[in-house]
């Protein structure tokens, strides 16, 4: 437990690992040269960047380090991947994606559909968040330039069968991109033998800083840069390199590989303990997504008849940081598109609460959360018009609905 409290919002962002920070610090004050410069200051930095590239390559199991392009994060990687493919295959006018993607993909696809005349096929999910494979197969066709499907969902942790999807896309002649921002570091990968053509990752989800990420581009794939300018990143992403960030990402990739087993054993066990304890202690709540096939660190519980932001505020008061797919936390009026896509009823969607652990989470922290959550839920339900004093849902039909 840190001084600030118990942090269970690691799918939003993670703490920079002190070892990562230590690797980065010299890049600010000592090794500050521009890697493009023809002197020792530049060369030292260039060498570190190449070291970092190899660490990311190793984490992804990629065949070549030159397949890694450093970017400013997940959003830039997603945008670059999609726009590159559309530009490289100008005759193809369709995109296949899913309804539960991150806005970094969905908002771009909406824009391309509205303003650029593309056809976007958004594949639906069932009530466990599993992709509709029949719809996916039906959507693939000669007009599809790119398929962009996330590896693991940020809200529920549900994992999609990426290899199978990539093979199908390949057979249909489409480029396959995956937003693996939540999956990298938690799921072992060997892209060298995979049909995945492009993959996005983001540093700040794996204990590197914010504002650094990478795009994997399989060797031989046609590529068109989004940012044009200098020759950095082999002209695939212009702009002087964010050297400290890149080195931080390299160090974080190395650590992630080392801790992958821990994530999938100890962290997973803590997650399961938390989830089972909440389900046992709190009536009218359930796990969203597919509990049998999800990230080891993520648990998303929907509490019926109460609203997520209120839950978060009370958790925060108890020193616990979590997250919610509720409308109110985002300033929109609709609950999360992921909850709606899974058909989670409105009675529960607004109360969906995500706890996302990391390798830094301890058992004491989980025990403390288990002790606090039932009281918070009971307090809010006592205020809710949908919950009777008897401790059960009740009929309430207000004027507009």
């Amino acid at each position, binding site marked *: 437990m840190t001084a600030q409290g118990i942090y269970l919002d690691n799918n939003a962002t993670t703490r920079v690992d002190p070892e990562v920070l230590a690797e980065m610090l010299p890049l600010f004050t000592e090794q500050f040269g521009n890697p493009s410069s023809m002197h020792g200051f530049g060369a030292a930095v260039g060498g570190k960047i190449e070291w970092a590239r190899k660490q990311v390559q190793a984490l992804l199991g990629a065949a070549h380090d030159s397949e890694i392009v450093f970017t400013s994060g997940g959003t830039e990687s997603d945008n670059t991947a999609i726009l590159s493919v559309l530009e490289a295959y100008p005759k193809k006018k369709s995109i296949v994606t899913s309804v539960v993607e991150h806005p970094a993909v969905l908002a771009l696809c909406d824009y391309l559909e509205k303003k650029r005349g593309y056809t976007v096929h958004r594949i639906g999910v069932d009530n466990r968040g599993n992709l509709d494979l029949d719809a996916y197969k039906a959507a693939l066709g000669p007009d599809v330039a790119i398929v962009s499907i996330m590896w693991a969902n940020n809200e529920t942790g549900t994992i999609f069968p990426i290899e199978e999807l990539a093979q199908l896309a390949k057979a249909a002649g489409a480029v396959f991109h995956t937003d693996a921002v939540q999956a990298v570091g938690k799921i072992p990968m060997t892209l060298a033998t995979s049909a995945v053509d492009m993959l996005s990752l983001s540093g700040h989800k794996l204990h590197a800083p914010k504002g650094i990420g990478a795009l994997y581009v399989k060797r031989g794939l046609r590529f068109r840069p989004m940012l044009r300018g200098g020759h950095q990143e082999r002209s695939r992403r212009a702009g002087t390199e964010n050297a400290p960030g890149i080195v931080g990402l390299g160090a974080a990739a190395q650590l992630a590989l080392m801790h992958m087993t821990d994530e999938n054993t100890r962290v997973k066990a803590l997650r399961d303990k938390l989830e089972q304890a909440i389900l046992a202690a709190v009536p009218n709540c359930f796990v969203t997504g597919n509990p049998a096939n999800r990230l080891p660190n993520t648990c998303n519980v929907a509490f019926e008849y109460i*609203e*997520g932001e209120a839950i978060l*505020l009370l958790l925060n008061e108890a020193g616990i940081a979590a997250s919610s797919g509720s409308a109110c936390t985002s300033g929109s009026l609709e609950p999360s598109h992921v909850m709606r896509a899974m058909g989670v009823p409105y009675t529960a969607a607004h109360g969906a609460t995500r706890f996302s652990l990391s390798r830094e989470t301890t058992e004491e922290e989980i025990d403390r959360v288990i002790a606090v959550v039932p009281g918070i839920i009971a307090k809010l339900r*006592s205020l809710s*018009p949908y919950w009777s004093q008897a401790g059960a849902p009740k009929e309430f039909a207000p004027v507009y609905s």
Partner: protein
Amino acid sequence: MWNYTDKVKEHFFNPKNAGALDEANAVGEVGSITCGDALKLMMKVNPDSQVIEDAKFQTFGCGSAIASSSALTEMIIGKTVDEALAVTNRDIAEYLGGLPPEKMHCSVMGAEALRAAIANFKGEEWVDDHEEGELVCKCFGIDAAMIERAVTVNSLTTLEEVTHYTKAGGSCQTCHEKIEEVLEAVLAKTGALAPPKSHAPGTVGLDAIKPLAPKAEAAPAKLTNVQRMQKIMFAIEELRPQIQRDGGDVELVDIDGKDIYVRLTGACSGCSQSAGTMMGVQAKLVEALGEFVRVKPASLLPVGA
């Protein structure tokens, strides 16, 4: 994270008058679980004096919804029904020390529950004219529905007009793209799309830009000796990084009319490519000066010069 005022936090963490009021004779229920917030306001009104003697609430919603409900009950207890009717959503927000623009609808819900409860007490039917859409302009808390209405009712066609009528887009201006989208959608529906924009006076479109005519060969103006020397020095400075990269260096030694003497050092001196390097220097100088010059190694400098 929202920036809630201390007053909002106080009413959220320790809400006043929460729970059911069994002897209520005025009940207003608004909102829905679909919208993400709902409020049941229960009041006990004295039928003779019309004074609201007690009020309680039950709320499904976020922090500010609960705080608004709590504030509302505090504000109306002790007032007569008619006095209470004067309470607006702004009053509720002000009582709480302000609400974030995205959360103003929580105070609206409070004001509506109050009107619904009073209608219920008077035996009238309360109709909701409440409408909400995506919040477009955060600075002024204006949603898409309100912009659509303003555009339709007043036949607006431009972003500026929308700003004049609704204030939307009048502050930080980051919402202009969204306002234009709403505007375009309405105009497309009514078939009143604005005519294509012409270029602003004094500017031209891309199609009007013609390739530049080739420049007429102007006779190079005669350089003074100092200007000429500076040009030579500058051109050699420009070449140096390239030569240094190959491990060598070049240095200007003397200028004698059309003969320019330089010294090659390092890896270049005596290397098989030094002749090539000399030629490169010569080409660069000819280009920079616009006249023919010969570049010679310093070793050929006339003795005693």
